[in-house]
């Protein structure tokens, strides 16, 4: 017990020296080994506390404002529970320049919150553009960049957009970014994509793989979980597959043609095909339990086909059959031997 106390006392001093950056090389190697070991966690916690207390009491002379980070945080929390915020705060007029709304059913919401500032009353707005299932849309951001939003996706950004160009994406969107010198950042649940002026596609649907596909220019993709970063060249795609973060060369058309009203499948398995169809046509598709269904894959391009035509196509090209329930708009796909 005594020896532990003595050791802590020594560590207390070493830790203080470390914190104040006045530690000598030998002591640094000692303290860094100590800090790196998980079993010392509790002792480290108690070593940290007095330094924390002192820092928190400090009357800061130098303000270190960081409006970009502040806006990013505010935006993240607004998006994280938009519903709550919408209920509490007034939903009001729009100031967004929407170039074109191709499809009806587009939902735009604006969230205001008042910020108390020493100088002026300042209003920050968050705008969200959503494309419901079965609909797609495109629009122009305040900086002139173009966004194509796929079905079941939404993009949010705040009013001070032109300086800190940050959009938050749920689902899938294609971006054509105007180069104005300021970085343009697409933030998703799984990863961030940073660009200057370029065109690329980001897909980040909940429960599916995160993929960023670059058509022109350069982008940097950062995985949220590990912070790992890669730069993409045109024609490359960065994807997060579970714990795997990798870059591949791909046929970019396959990943961006949706914006031109085309669905392209290349050897894509039935499950993934049905997921895309569900969003595209706003329907529910259930797959039967037959294991052979998971072995079916499709290759082809769909363009302007009606949903019943698509189902016919699926049926004549693979051993499946389907039942459609009008009321629930649910399609059930089963494996069939009559092929």
């Amino acid at each position, binding site marked *: 017990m005594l020896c532990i106390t003595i050791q802590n006392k020594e560590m207390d001093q070493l830790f203080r020296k470390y914190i104040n950056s006045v530690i000598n090389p030998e002591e640094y190697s000692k303290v860094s080994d100590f800090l790196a070991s998980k079993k010392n966690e509790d002792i480290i916690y108690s070593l940290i506390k007095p*330094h924390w207390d002192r820092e928190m009491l*400090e009357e800061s002379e130098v303000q270190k404002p960081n409006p970009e980070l502040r806006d990013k*945080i505010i935006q993240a929390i607004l998006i*994280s529970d938009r519903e709550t*915020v919408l209920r509490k705060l007034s939903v009001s007029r729009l100031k967004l320049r929407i170039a074109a709304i191709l499809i009806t059913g587009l939902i735009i919401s604006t969230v205001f919150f*008042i910020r108390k500032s020493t100088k002026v009353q300042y209003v920050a707005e968050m705008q969200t553009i959503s494309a419901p299932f079965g609909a797609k849309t495109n629009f122009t951001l305040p900086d002139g960049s173009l966004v194509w939003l796929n079905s079941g996706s939404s993009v949010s950004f705040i009013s001070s957009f032109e300086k800190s160009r940050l959009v938050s994406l749920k689902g899938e969107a294609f971006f054509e970014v105007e180069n104005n010198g300021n970085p343009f950042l697409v933030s998703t649940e799984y990863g961030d994509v940073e660009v200057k002026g370029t065109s690329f596609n980001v897909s980040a649907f909940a429960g599916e793989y995160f993929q960023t596909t670059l058509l022109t220019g350069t982008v940097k993709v950062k995985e949220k979980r590990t912070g790992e970063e890669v730069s993409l060249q045109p024609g490359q795609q960065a994807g997060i597959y579970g714990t795997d973060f990798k870059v591949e060369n791909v046929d970019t058309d396959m990943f961006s043609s949706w914006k031109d009203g085309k669905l392209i499948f290349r050897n894509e398995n039935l499950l993934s095909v049905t997921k895309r169809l569900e969003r595209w046509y706003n329907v529910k598709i259930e797959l039967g339990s037959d294991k052979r269904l998971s072995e079916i894959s499709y290759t082809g391009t769909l363009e302007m086909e009606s949903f019943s035509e698509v189902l016919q196509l699926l049926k004549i090209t693979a051993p499946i059959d389907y039942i459609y329930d009008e009321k629930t708009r649910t399609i059930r796909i089963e494996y069939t031997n009559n092929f």
Partner: protein
Amino acid sequence: MKKTFELEIVLLQLAEDNPAAIEELFNYYYHRLYHFSKSFLKLDEGIDDVLQEVFIKIWQNRKNIRTTHTFNAFIFTITRNLLLNELRSRLNDQKVKDKIGKLAIPIEYSFIEQSEYYDLKEKVDRAIDELPVRQKEIFSLSRINGYSHKEIAEKLNITTKAVEFHIAKATVLLRKKLLNFELA
């Protein structure tokens, strides 16, 4: 006019799901947290990512934060855990560990070519020993006891500026002495 920060009021706003509360908290805590994180991680990179997570965690846990007491405990725990995790993973990477070391070890150890470490330390100690009395006293409080400039100022009842002045003067002198040792 300095704006006052009333934690109780901000926590009420927070309990009402008002995002303006996060903004207030950010304005009050950001530079404090940044300074603290910097002293712990040494490198600037990654600090903002940690702090973003701190504020988002506060927002997500707002229903459990009612009193200033729980808030103070929460913000400490969350920041501490995130920082320690970050530092631990960085120290396991030898390259990053060396980079952190460069920032944690004071300048006098870089004045002469790294020969043998004990040799170097002995030389630095000897050079400190030969400093004028006042400089030696202040320099030792910093390098041996590990106190910050502010703490030394409080102990000796002088200004922080004066401490910085003595340390700067001592550093210049040490450099000269150490270079002489090397030539000798």
